[in-house]
Every structure is written in structure tokens, then in C-alpha cells.
């Protein structure tokens, strides 16, 4: 997903869930910040690099795919962009090394989605935004894993299923590997990662082999994932994105105290129903990014102007704060929530017997085990381990 959904659509969903326009904007900002909070960004503000929620292409190019490198990549991508669907999935006749990766495949409505939303319940709008980013990404990034793996993330035989006057047309998707070549919906040409059969190549991270197809809300397509053993996956992005939107409204309703328990596979379609046609028309419109449409919908919905996403907006406040005050700033709270999320997911992966994300012990603010007072530790030292 891109800025259109993580920022503008999340803003709309938060407002529909009952948040004020200002709270909704904070949630949306936090949700979008997950895609920008790299180590480079954090270092700029002298924050805790363990709070990184993404990696820039340059950072990935710099990362070694040795054990610590893979653990770092997996902690970031599996925690924030490819939340594993089932850490205890079972397949017959597969070795452990394969199953460890297979179990990291992202999917919707897994137990970790519930854990993520419940964890966000302890935080403010920043934690809520992070949780909404992760929840929404489970819909866009399902079927890919947040760890470099050729045997899992390679994919082939992409066909777009386009509605035409003559019914549904099956059009072959053409990929090139030039990173500066823009994607074209008209010519059906997209950019994807180069095929690298090295199992741990970062080219095989997440949906790199599918290019940005999972991120475009209008795309309806089919493909064969490497893990699927010749199975064809049909991916209907408009429908999936709509469900993501309804689930976000429900999840934020829970975070506001509207529901006592968070249940997976539950959607607040009642609140969204009056706007269904408009939302679906935005999602189905053939365009690479729908910022303007979502922004206009959000402004009409709330009756308030919505500023564009500005990455530097809260940096000054964080830099100007005294060390002990930093964790009470917007960025400080975001970093704390990000570390908590990363720690929770890493711990769940580790507890399942899977070592790809590294070793972890449960967080314990009491200090008996795990990272004691992780927020203070992170800010106090400026560097450190997330788990």
C-alpha cells in the first residue's frame, strides 16, 4: 500500500471510527510514517535506530545477508509490513528450514493481527496508526513473506484480469527491472526485482518479484507464488482494500472502547456502507496512486482541510526536547510504539520455535527479563537491541 491508503484512507477510516479530525490526522500520519521511518531517518534526529520500521533501498543494499542481517531485515519487514498469518502452519514433507520461512508468509486475520491491535490499545494515536498500517498491509501484502527467500517469495505468470466490454480479459503483465522506469497501467508494464535464485538475496524480500502490483488499489490479477506449488492466486485489490478499510474502522472502534474485545475477521461495514460506492469507485479507478481522490473524500467527510503528509513535521519538536522529555513527543511515542510492536512480533516468532527473526525474550517492564523499560533504555543509550 502507498500513501493514498496509509495516510488519506486511514484518516477517513479513523474519522468514521469516531476520532476527531485532529486525532484522525495523527493516526494517519503515524500510519504513513511506518513507511518512512528508516534508520537513516532516525539517525537524522538522533533517535533509537531499533525503532526503524522500514529500510531504504540503499540500506538494504548495504545489509549483509548473514544471520544478523537476515534477522534485522525480518524483524523490520515481518513486524510492520508482512505480518505472518500463521506461525504454526503445517505442511507435509517439508524440511524445517523451509517451514520457518513458510510460516512467515503474511496473511489476513491471523492471531498476530489481534495481538497487534491489542498492543496498540496500550498506546496513543501513534500506536494506533502503526497498528492500522500493519493491519492494512496484511491485505495488500498477503501471500508474501517479510524475509528474503527465493523459495517463498519468487512469483511468476502474472496476468491482469481487466474488465472490458467483452467480459474479463486476461492480460499478461510485463515486467522490467529498471528502477527508474515508471510503471504504466496503460501499457501494462511494471518494474519488479531482478530474478535472483540466491535464496537469501534481498531481491527476494517481500513482494519484490511482484513489483508494486500489490500496492495498487485498482489491480486485479493472478499469479503463481513459488510457495504455492503451482497454485494460482487471484488477488482482487479493490475488494481486499475495501475489507481492509472496514476492518480498520472496526479496529479503531475497538481502540476507542466501542467494543470490549477485538475479533479477527470482523468488519464495521455498517459505518462504511453509506460511502461504499464512493470508496469502491476510488479503489477501482485505474491510477497508480489515489491521493487526490482520498484527500477530497476525507475533506468532504470531516468538513476539515487535510494537510499533505510532511515527513519533517515532528522532527523539530523531537530535537528541541530535553532527553528525558523526548519520549513524550510525537516522534518519541511513535518510536516507543514501534519498538513495542517489533519486540512483540519478534518474540512471537521466536516463541514459535522459529529463529529467523533472532532470539527474543518477553518484554517485562518490571525488569526481571527482557528489555526493562525499553523506552528509556532506547532513549537513554540511543542504540540497542529491540529484543
Amino acid at each position, binding site marked *: 500500500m502507498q500513501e493514498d491508503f496509509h495516510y488519506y484512507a486511514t484518516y477517513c477510516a479513523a474519522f468514521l471510527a469516531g476520532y476527531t479530525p485532529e486525532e484522525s490526522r495523527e493516526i494517519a500520519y503515524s500510519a504513513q510514517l511506518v513507511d518512512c521511518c528508516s534508520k537513516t531517518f532516525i539517525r537524522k534526529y538522533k533517535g533509537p535506530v531499533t525503532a526503524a520500521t522500514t529500510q531504504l533501498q540503499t540500506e538494504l543494499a548495504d545489509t549483509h545477508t548473514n544471520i544478523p542481517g537476515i534477522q534485522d531485515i525480518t524483524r523490520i519487514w515481518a513486524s510492520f509490513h508482512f505480518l505472518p498469518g500463521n506461525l504454526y502452519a503445517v505442511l507435509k514433507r517439508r524440511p524445517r528450514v523451509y517451514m520457518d520461512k513458510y510460516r512467515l508468509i503474511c496473511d489476513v486475520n491471523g492471531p498476530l493481527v489481534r495481538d497487534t491491535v491489542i498492543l496498540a490499545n496500550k498506546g496513543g494515536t501513534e500506536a494506533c496508526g502503526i497498528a492500522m498500517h500493519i493491519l492494512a498491509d496484511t491485505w495488500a501484502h498477503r501471500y508474501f513473506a517479510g524475509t528474503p527467500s527465493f523459495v517463498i517469495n519468487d512469483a511468476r505468470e502474472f496476468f491482469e484480469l481487466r474488465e472490458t466490454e467483452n467480459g474479463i480479459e486476461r492480460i499478461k503483465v510485463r515486467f522490467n527491472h529498471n528502477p527508474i522506469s515508471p510503471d504504466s497501467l496503460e501499457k501494462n508494464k511494471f518494474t519488479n526485482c531482478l530474478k535472483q535464485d540466491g535464496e537469501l538475496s534481498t531481491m527476494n524480500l517481500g513482494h519484490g518479484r511482484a513489483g508494486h502490483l500489490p500496492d495498487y488499489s485498482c489491480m486485479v490479477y*493472478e499469479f*503463481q507464488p513459488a510457495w504455492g*506449488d*503451482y*497454485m*494460482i492466486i*487471484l488477488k482482487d485489490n479493490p475488494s481486499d482494500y475495501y475489507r481492509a478499510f472496514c476492518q480498520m474502522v472496526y479496529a479503531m472502534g475497538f481502540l476507542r472502547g466501542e467494543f470490549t474485545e477485538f475479533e479477527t475477521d470482523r468488519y464495521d461495514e455498517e459505518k462504511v456502507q453509506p460511502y461504499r460506492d464512493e470508496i469502491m469507485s476510488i479503489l477501482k479507478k485505474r491510477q497508480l496512486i489515489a491521493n487526490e481522490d482520498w484527500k477530497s473524500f476525507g475533506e468532504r467527510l470531516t468538513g476539515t482541510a487535510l494537510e499533505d503528509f510532511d515527513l519533517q513535521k515532528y522532527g523539530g519538536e523531537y530535537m528541541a526536547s530535553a532527553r528525558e522529555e523526548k519520549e513524550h513527543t510525537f516522534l518519541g511515542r511513535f518510536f516507543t510504539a514501534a519498538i513495542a510492536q517489533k519486540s512483540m512480533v519478534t518474540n512471537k516468532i521466536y516463541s514459535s520455535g522459529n529463529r529467523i527473526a533472532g532470539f527474543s525474550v518477553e518484554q517485562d517492564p518490571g525488569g526481571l527479563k527482557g528489555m526493562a523499560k525499553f523506552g528509556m533504555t532506547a532513549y537513554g543509550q540511543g542504540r540497542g537491541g529491540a529484543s
Partner: protein
Amino acid sequence: MDTENTINSPLNIELRRVSNYLGYSGRAVIIFGLWDAAKTVIQFILDPETFLQYFDGGTEIARKLAVAFIVFIVMVLLTVGLCIRFFIGIRAISEGQGKMKSPVYLVVTGLFLIVNTAFMIMDFISVRVGHSEPDSLLISVLIEITSDFALGMILYSACRLRFLNRRA
């Protein structure tokens, strides 16, 4: 959901798997053909004595004529072999992609497999009579076995594909 169930029925999955085998085996046959040609040309350039060992006697002119004759024969055999392999490989890839289906190339594949196997057996015999070195033969036989495996896979996959298509 029904569409999803149909496209991912065990029969359809098996069809895609076998088509894929056919395509890859076709590519393998072409690559082994190119390797065979490259190997012979390199051998001729680096070690022409291998081909000329039976022409030790005679005048210089007779020797040159023998070289020309051998080059000609080798080139003809290489070209024919390569053409056959390309024919088999391209047809297998086409059938794997569901474009073309012809029984002719399967007959050619079968014959080629028999000839290839016969040559491999002759190589073994040449070791027994002392014309070849066993260590160099081992490598060549391993490659030949892999090449024959690719040819065998084409026969198996094409037959299986036809059988599955009849059931579909």
C-alpha cells in the same frame, strides 16, 4: 470462490506442473546440445590429435585432406545433432506453453534417446578396449546421463500431459 476452486483443482495443478516440466526439459535439451557442440569444437581446437590419431601414416597432403574431411564430417554431425535438439527443445517448450502439440517430435525424441544411449554404451566399450581414459569418460557419461534424463522427461511429461488433458 468457485473459479478459484476450479483453477486450483488437483488436476489443474498437475497440468501446470507437468507443462512446466516439459518446458524446462525442452530448454535442457537445447542447452545440452549447445554444450555438446561447444565441447566438440573446443576439443578440436585444443586437442586435434584426438581426431587425427587414426591418420598417423601417409603424406602431408593426405593428412591435410584427412583433417578437412574430419572437420566436414564433424560439422555436419554437429549441425544435424544441434538441429534435432533444437527441434525437440522448441517443440517441447511450445507444448509446455500450450501452443503446439505434435506427436512427430516425440518419435524423434524417442529415437534420439535410443541413439544417445547407444553412443554411451559404445563409450563404455571403448574404455574396455583401451581407447578412452576412464576419468574423462566419467564426466562425459554423467553429462550424457543428464541429457538422456531430459529427453526421458520430455517423453514422460508429454505423455502425462496428453493423458491429463483428456481427463480435464
